[in-house]
C-alpha cells in the first residue's frame, strides 16, 4: 500500500505525517502521534468517546478517514490544556463539580461542551443536553456533567 502525505494543524501546531490510505483519524492520533486522550469505545461513531474538534466542530474521529483533515485544524483533549499547564475552565469545572467518574467519556464530553460554549456562551440546560447528546456515559447519569458545563459558562443553577 502506498503512503500518503498529510499536513494539518493539531492543537495549534503544524503536523506532517505520512500514512497508509486506510488510516482513520483516531488511529493516527493515538498510534502515530501518541495522543491517547482520544478514546475508542465503539468504532462506529456511536459512543462519542473519540470526539475531536475539526475546524471547531465536534466529529467522531473513529469513523473519519485521517486524510479528510488535510489542511484543517484538529483539537484533541490534550489541546485544551494551555501551554503553561493551566486548565480550560471546562476541565476545571468537570473536576470541581464531580463530573468525572471512570473518565472514559470525559474527553468527548468536554470537547462537545467546548464547541457549544464557543458558539453559545450562555446555553440553557436543554441546549447543553442536546449538544452533549452524542456522547454516552455509563457512570454519572449526566447530571454533574450538565452542572459542570453550566459552571464553566458561569451559569448559576
Amino acid at each position: 500500500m502506498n503512503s500518503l502525505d498529510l499536513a494539518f494543524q493539531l492543537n495549534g501546531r503544524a503536523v506532517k505525517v505520512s500514512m497508509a490510505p486506510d488510516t482513520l483519524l483516531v488511529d493516527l492520533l493515538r498510534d502515530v502521534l501518541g495522543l491517547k486522550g482520544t478514546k475508542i469505545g465503539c468504532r462506529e461513531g456511536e459512543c462519542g468517546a473519540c470526539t475531536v474538534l475539526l475546524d471547531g466542530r465536534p466529529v467522531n474521529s473513529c469513523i473519519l478517514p485521517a486524510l479528510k483533515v488535510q489542511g484543517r485544524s484538529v483539537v484533541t483533549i490534550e489541546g485544551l490544556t494551555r501551554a503553561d499547564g493551566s486548565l480550560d475552565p471546562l476541565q476545571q469545572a468537570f473536576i470541581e463539580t464531580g463530573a468525572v467518574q471512570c473518565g472514559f467519556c470525559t474527553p468527548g464530553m468536554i470537547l462537545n461542551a467546548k464547541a457549544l460554549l464557543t458558539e453559545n456562551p450562555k446555553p440553557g440546560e436543554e441546549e447543553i443536553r442536546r449538544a452533549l447528546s452524542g456522547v454516552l456515559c455509563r457512570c454519572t447519569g449526566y447530571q454533574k456533567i450538565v452542572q459542570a458545563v453550566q459552571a464553566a459558562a458561569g451559569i448559576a443553577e
Partner: protein
Amino acid sequence: MRNQDEGRKDVQLLTKEKFDFQQLLQSPSTDLAVAGQSVQRTDARLKVTGKLIYGADYGQQGFLHGKILRSPHPHALILAIRTEKAAALPGVAAVLTARDVPGRNGFGAIIPDQPVICGDKVRYVGDAVALVAAETEKIAQQALELIEVDYEILPAVLDPREALKEDAPQIHEKGNLLSYNKLRKGDLEAGWREAEVVLERTYRVPFLEHAYLEPDVTMAVPQADGTMVVEGPMQAPFTTRRNLAAVLGLPINQVRVRQVPMGGGFGGKEDSPIDIGCRAAVLARHTGRPVRLALEREEVTIQTCKRHPMIMTIKLGARRDGTLTAFAGVIYDEQGAYASLGPVIPPAGGSHIHSMIMMPGPYEIPHVSVDAYLCYTNHPYGGAMRGFGAPQVHIAHEQIMDELALELGLDPLEIRRKNAFKLGSATATGQVLDQSVGLRETLEACAREFDWAGRFRRTGYVDAEKTRRRGIGVGLGWYRTSIGTAGDGCGANVYVHEDGSALLFTGITEMGQGSYTVLPQICAEELGICLDQVRLVQPDTHMVPESGPTVGSRSTTLMGNAIIQAARQVKETILETASEMLLVPASRLEARAGRICDRENPERVLLFREAAARAMARGKRLIGQGWWTPPPATLDPETGQGNPYFVYTYSTHMAEVEVDVETGEVEVTDYVAAFDVGKAINPRAVEGQIEGGVAMGLGYALMEEVVLKNGVPQNLSLQNYLIPTILDVPRIKSIVLEMPNAHGPYGAKGIGEMPNIPATPAILNAIANACGGRVRSLPADPEKVYWAIKEAGGAPQE
C-alpha cells in the same frame, strides 16, 4: 455481632423520634477533617486532560496480538480442528487448541467450568475454539479465518425452564441445574389463611450488557524468571491471579497481576479479565513473548458475562389493610453457558442465593418461601452486574407491591409504610436488623421532597388532546454490604516515610466509583495528615495484600476498616515519638492536617513529618498492616435462615413519567432518591453513585436488552444495545441520610450498587400509574407499553 449493644444505643438515639429524618440529613462532620468531605477526585485532573493511561493506551511495541476463534453454534461437539493453514501464515506466532493449555483447561470466578479453549464441545455462540497470536491484529484475524472446525450440532437449550426438563440436552456433565436454593420461614399455609387478598404475578427480565465505555483489553508479559505478569483493567486481581496460576500450572507467587485504570466495570470486569487474561497468558506462555488481547465492542457483547435474566413468580397474601401475611416466590435464574458468579459460595455468596435472600423485599412478612433454580442454558453467561441478582428481584417485589396496593385501593406509600423494615425487624432469613436501618426515614424524606401526596392527586393527562398522561411511582430497596462468603477479608498496608508522606497499599480497584479518593481520605483522616500526603499504590498482587474483589459494595466499609487499623498502628508509633518530643502524654496528643498538638495546650505543637522523621531515625516501625473481616455470615442451606450479610443500605426512589398513550413512548420527567448510607465519606462521590445508578436503572426499565435469536445475540453494538443518553435521564435529586453502621468506618456502609436497584421498579410503577398498563416483561419499550395499555382496555379516559 461485635459492638452490637453499642451500635444499638447509637441507632436508638437517632430513631427516638419516629421518621424525624431531618437530623439524619448528611452534613459535614465537624470532628472529621478529611473523611466526610467532598474532596476532589485524586484522578480527576489526569482524566480531564486526557493524560490517564488506560489499558488500551499502553505501548504495543514488541507485543504479539491475540485473537479468539469463536463458536458459531450455541451447542455443538467439536469433531476436528485443522490449524495448519493458519499456522503457516507469515506473521503468525501461535495457533493453539485445547491440548496446548499448560495447566487446568478451565477458569471461572467460582467454579472453573469454562474452558480456556474448548476441546470437546462448545456451549454458547462465542465460546473459544482456538487462539491465535500474530505480529499484527490483521494477520491474527486472517489466521482465524484459515482455521477449519468440524462441528456436530447439538440441540440447544435456550430457556431455563426447558433446561430442567428430563429430556433436555445436557450442557455440562453434572446436569443443567447448577444450583437449587430454598428459603422457608414461618408457616406458609397459615399465612395464606390469614390473607384476605392473594395476588400472583410473573415478571421477566432479559440479559443485560454492562456497556462499560472501555472495551476489554489485557496484556500478558512473560518474565525471564518464569513469572507471568498480566495487566489490564479489572475488578478482581486476586480472582484473576488464582485462575491464571491454575491455567498456567504455576504457583501463585509466580503470577503477578496488575490492575490498570478502568473505564467502567459495573461488575462486568470481575469476569472478563479472567477470560481474556487466561487466554492471553496461555499465548504468551507458549510463544515466550508479550501478548496483547483486546476486544472490539461487538466482541465484548458476544463474549463477556451479562446480568442474569430471570423468570420470577410471586404469590403474595395480605390483609385488607395492607399487612402482608405470606410470600411465595419462585425464581428461574438463567445462568447461561458457564457458572461464572452464579453458584453458591457458602454460606451466602454468589448471585443466585443473593437473589433468593433479597426476593421478599425489605418488608416484614411472617410466612415466606422462595424456591430458586439456577439453570445452565446455551446462552451467554450471567455474571455480576451492579446489584448482583438484587435488581431482578426488586423488579418483581416492588411491582407486585403496587399491584397489591391497587387491588386494595391503597396508596402505594401506605402499603409500604405498613410493612417496611424498621429497627428490630426480622428479614425473610430471620435476621433481626439490630442497627442502621433507615428505610422508613428514606421513604419519608423522599416523599416530602417529591411531594408524593400532592403529585399523587395530580396525575392524569397533561395535554388537551389527551395523548400524554403523567404518573408517579415508588420503589424501595435494600442492599447488602459485603459478599456473604466465609472468606470476605480485606487487607491494607500503610507505610509512612520520614517526610511524613504515606503510601497506601490495597487491592481494591478503581473503576470510576471513586475508591482511589475515598480510601486515601480514610487513611489521611486516621493518620491525621492532609489528603495530598497520601498516595495510593495501584493494585499489584506482588505488592498489595489480599483484598478480595472490588464488588458487593464492600470497598469503603471493609477496606476502610482495614485502613483504619493499619493507620492506627503507625499513628500510635508517631504519637509515642511525638510524646517524647513534646513531653506530653501520648493520650493527650491529637494529629490533624499534618500537625500534632496537645489537646490541653494547643500551643504545644509539632509537625507530623517531624515526628515521622524522628521515629524513622530511631528505627521504629512505620508500617501498619490492617485486616478486616465482617462479622461471620450464616445461612442454613435447608431453610435459608441466618444472618447472611452484616449490614444493609436502604433507599426509596420516586419517579414521575409521562406516557404517550397512543405510542407507548415514556419520558421520565422527574426523580428523587433518598438513601441511608450510614456515613458519606465523600458526599459528592455518593451523589455521583446515586445519579449514575438511577440512569442505569432507567435503562433497565425502558430500553436495555441483549436480544437473542436462536442463541445468537442480535444487538452487538452500542447502536443497537441502547443505554440512556443525556436526553433520556431527568434531573435527579439525591437525599443522603446517615444512620451510622456500627461496623463501618465512621459509620459508613456500601453505596455502589444500591442506587441502580429500586430505580427500575420505581419507573415501571410510574408507567403503570400513568397509563393503566403494566409491563411485566422488560424492557418497557414503546411497543410493550403500547400493548400493555391495550391489554388494560385502553388508557383512562380522564
